[in-house]
């Protein structure tokens, strides 16, 4: 998944050879500039302008006065957030949930890939692979509908199954929607449900890319199937695992707003374990309408996220220069 920039040596040679004025460059590459223009404008307006907009975090933003005339208040918005006890809760939840998502997702994606590669029946392989990838294409709102059908206290499937098997009595139903302790596990299971099958695609491709001669040589030396998996397949996946883990760690400060807001919504009973930075910012905006404060929290998130990316990349370079993202 190396989407990073690749600095070709050949490129820089080309560039040095053709040091020329801007005008002749634009003339020469006129159509390429034309092709790249809409995209560049898009990023300027929708990605870079909002970066300038973070100035609001240092203002007492007033919709009437607007962006240019609102009063500057320095770090007051940050002070307010960091002295409330919320910041620790939402930061912890964001990081904790993301770490759980990352490692459980990794585990199941690799397991599915290995299991699929061990299955010889092509038809069975194809059908089950399609089925496990399907959830990736379903929206989180639909998942929240599933969650309701499964977990609802009075008519949810899980409570009726538990009752049918005699684990709980009438009136002892588990009220999932008011019990925050259960939700870390619920969210992790949902994430695995939705993402593990799709995540396995990349590992399957990596397994398919392993040189078959290694397996043949091992078999001649008397290696069993399990030994082939643990001694050849798993080590060969290392680079892919490290790279995807690094990507995951780089995103560890970004809460999954689409998922958590769709499923938990505005249910204060569950904030204790499910409220992440993104949902907190979003709620600030809608319920308190505090533009400056929510911008400040968003900026805190972006900056820490950026630092994390650079630190992981630095560590990756130290460990193995091939694994670095950029």
């Amino acid at each position: 998944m190396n989407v990073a920039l690749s600095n070709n040596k050949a490129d820089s040679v080309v560039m040095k050879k053709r040091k020329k004025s801007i005008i002749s460059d634009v003339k020469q590459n006129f159509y390429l500039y034309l092709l790249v223009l809409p995209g560049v404008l898009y990023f300027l307006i929708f990605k870079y302008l909002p970066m300038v907009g973070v100035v609001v975090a240092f203002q007492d933003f007033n919709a009437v006065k607007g962006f240019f005339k609102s009063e500057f208040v320095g770090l007051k918005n940050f002070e307010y957030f960091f002295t409330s006890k919320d910041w620790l809760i939402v930061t912890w939840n964001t990081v904790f949930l993301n770490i759980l998502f990352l490692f459980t997702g990794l585990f199941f994606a690799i397991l599915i890939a290995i299991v699929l590669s061990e299955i010889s029946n092509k038809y069975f392989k194809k059908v089950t692979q399609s089925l496990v990838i399907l959830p990736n294409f379903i929206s989180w709102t639909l998942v929240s509908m599933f969650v309701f059908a499964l977990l609802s206290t009075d008519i949810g499937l899980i409570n009726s199954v538990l009752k049918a098997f005699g684990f709980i009595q009438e009136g002892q139903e588990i009220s999932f929607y008011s019990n925050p302790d259960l939700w870390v596990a619920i969210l992790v299971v949902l994430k695995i449900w939705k993402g593990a099958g799709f995540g396995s695609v990349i590992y399957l491709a990596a397994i398919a890319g392993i040189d078959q001669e290694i397996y043949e040589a091992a078999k001649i030396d008397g290696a069993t199937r399990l030994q082939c998996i643990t001694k050849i397949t798993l080590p060969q996946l290392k680079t892919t695992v490290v790279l995807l883990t690094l990507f995951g760690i780089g995103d560890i400060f970004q809460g999954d707003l689409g998922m958590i807001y769709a499923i938990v919504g505005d249910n204060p009973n569950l904030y204790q374990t499910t409220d992440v930075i993104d949902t907190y910012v979003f709620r600030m905006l809608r319920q308190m309408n505090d533009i400056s404060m929510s911008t400040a929290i968003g900026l805190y998130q972006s900056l820490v996220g950026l630092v994390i990316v650079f630190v992981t990349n630095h560590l990756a370079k130290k460990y193995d220069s091939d694994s670095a993202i950029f």
Partner: protein
Amino acid sequence: MKSSLENKAIDTFSYLFMIIFSIFCILPFILIISSSVSDEKSVQLTGFALIPKQFSLLAYEVIFQDNTIFTAYRTTIIFTVVGTILCLIITSAMAYAISVKTFTHRNKIAFFVYFTMLFSGGLIPSYLLISKYLGLSDNILVYIVPALVNPFNMFLLRNFFKQIPDSLAESAKIDGANDIYILFKIILPLAKPALATIGLFYGLGFWNEWFTATLYINDKDLYSLQYLIMKVLREVEFMYQLDYMQGVIVDYVKPNNTVKMATAVVTVGPIIFVYPFLQKYFIKGLVVGAVKG
């Protein structure tokens, strides 16, 4: 002997694991389909079930009585189709330009895009920009314009373009073709699997869109399908406002729960039907674009 036992164990585990995981993945779908064709009263008495206890199509009759669903369908189809086409054009134009080795500033532009994956101004400044300064609230364009280029898709496509031999474009250039002609007539036809892949990603992204609607849409005619699900699930009052729920009282029971499930089934339908056809493309495209980055 030992090795054949191990063989059997691995086979059994593999097949069993895939069967169980597949069931785990499709169970929720079966549950909502079954619930949507159940009788409301039986649902209220015994809960949702994997097999309908009492069959009833009332929920579907109810939701097709007025045009809320149809309007949401129309809105969603419009912005999905228009959005996906625009995204594909702009993304491939950008990806092609920065894949051309003689393009002077290609690495700078690549970093310009890459940086937005590392740092962002956050939700609120974008919200202010789009609603207050660009005035896109309650406009169908708000689904499309702020989502035109996804950096990840752009790089995926660039990596794919990079593998197409330069000689093709060069010989066309010698014949006097310009870059736009080369992109549309030579490069894109060769990049079909990659285009299918990112087209699928963009298309599904649009189809599953609901968060944009929570931020910018108040007009009921511009609800996306997924936002409608959200409304139906969360807001009981919203359901009663819909024409279709007014006056529908069967045996003193309003079909709340089954209507929720039927709405969900109706919105997920197209994905299930399109999915098998696109699957073979995206696995190929994703693997080629990603592994050889």
